Each structure stands twice: as C-alpha cells, then as structure tokens.
C-alpha cells in the first residue's frame, strides 16, 4: 500500500503540468490533481495493473478537469462571426496569404518550439482555449465539448476555428519568422 502511495505521489508533477495546461488557474489545477490522487488512493482496486499507472491517473484527472471546467464555466459568450473578418477582404480572399512554414517537422524536435506553442496557447481567450484544449489535448469530440461547455456544435466549430487561426498566426510570428 505504501509502495502504491509513493508511486502515485511520484506522478504528481506530471499531473500538475497536465492540469495546468488545461486550467489556467493554478489553484484549480492543484485542486484537480489533489482530487485525482485522493480518488486513486481510495480506489486502488480500480487500477488492477490494467494500464500504466500514469495512463490510469491521467484518465481520472481528465474527469476532474472537466468537472472543474464545468464549475468555472459561466454563460456562453455571444459568437461573433466576424472576429477574423480582418484576415479576409470583402470578397473572402486572404488579405495576407499564408506563406509556407520552413521545416515544421524539425520544430517538433525542439523544446523551445513547445515553449512557443505554450505561450501562444496562453494568449487564447479563455473560452476559445477551453474548447481547443478539450479537443486537441484531451481528445474529446465536438459533441462532448458542446455538452461540457453548453454550446451548440456551430459555436464549438467557430471556437476551434478561431483557436487554429490564432495559433497559426502566433506560431508564424513567434517561431517560423524568427
């Protein structure tokens, strides 16, 4: 039992970082991890060697994160379709055509790239970021995201579209043009 406890405890930094990426509020991240560790220690039987300990803990943590998002989620803001209007002219052409990125594959091998990515993620508006992280980090489908955030599928696609637009712009500026 003590051995299990210390193995669980060793995963704390990983879980904290994981939760921190989803929930910008460090206190909320800490709480989610704490609840996860508690649930793990009281539910050791549920682990049963099926998966790796980290995978199992991460699975519990995902649920705690979703609970936290649900708690923090206020009423859905109005969708403004024209937030990115400035990127296109009145005929729907790019004002500034996206240029190719030089060697994106190499970026994935560099730690500094991920620091830039995290910085760009941190700049997203909260609701946009929540939807995007649920989609791309937790791997939920849009149906689940709509339910969790209490928004329509169309609203959800708009949020994800905005997130991708903003990240593309930010990465171009912060990484690929440097």
């Amino acid at each position: 039992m003590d051995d299990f406890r210390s193995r669980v405890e060793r995963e704390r930094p990983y879980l904290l970082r994981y939760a921190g990426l989803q929930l910008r509020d460090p206190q909320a991240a800490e709480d989610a991890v704490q609840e996860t560790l508690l649930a793990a220690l009281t539910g050791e039987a549920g682990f049963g060697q099926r998966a790796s300990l980290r995978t199992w803990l991460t699975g519990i943590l995902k649920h705690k994160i979703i609970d936290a998002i649900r708690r923090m989620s206020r009423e859905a803001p109005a969708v403004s379709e024209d937030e990115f209007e400035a990127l296109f002219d009145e005929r729907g052409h790019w004002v500034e055509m996206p240029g190719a990125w030089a060697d994106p594959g190499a970026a994935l091998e560099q730690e500094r790239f991920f620091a830039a990515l995290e910085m760009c993620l941190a700049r997203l508006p909260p609701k946009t970021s929540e939807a995007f992280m649920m989609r791309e980090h937790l791997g939920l489908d849009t149906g689940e995201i709509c339910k969790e955030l209490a928004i329509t599928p169309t609203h959800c696609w708009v949020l994800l579209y905005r997130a991708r637009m903003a990240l593309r712009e930010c990465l171009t500026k912060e990484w690929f043009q440097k």
Partner: protein
Amino acid sequence: MMLSCKQAARLVSQGLDRELGFTERVRLRVHLAICDGCTNFSNQVAFVRKAMARLAEQSPKT
C-alpha cells in the same frame, strides 16, 4: 460555384472536427488545388494538431 478562401479556411478547420459532406469535400479539394494560401493554411492547422498531440504526451519538465 467556387469557394472563397474564407469559406475554404472554415471548411479546412471543420474537417478536423466533423466529417465533411461529399459536396463540401469536392469543393474544398478544387479550391485547394488552385490556392497556395489555403493549402499552406491547411498544412499548418494539421501541423498544429500534430504538435498538440506531441505536447499532450510529453513528460513534465522537472
């Protein structure tokens, strides 16, 4: 009827979140075949997805 870049960009993004209909896929493919800007855009959002997957599986920096 040709898609505008704005419509194409939106479909590219939605294609990552839902299955596009047949007509949508055809129109998008026709647009991408002739538009470098949207092709770059499409590659870049696909890359962002890959980078996010990599980020999700990364161990914490301690």
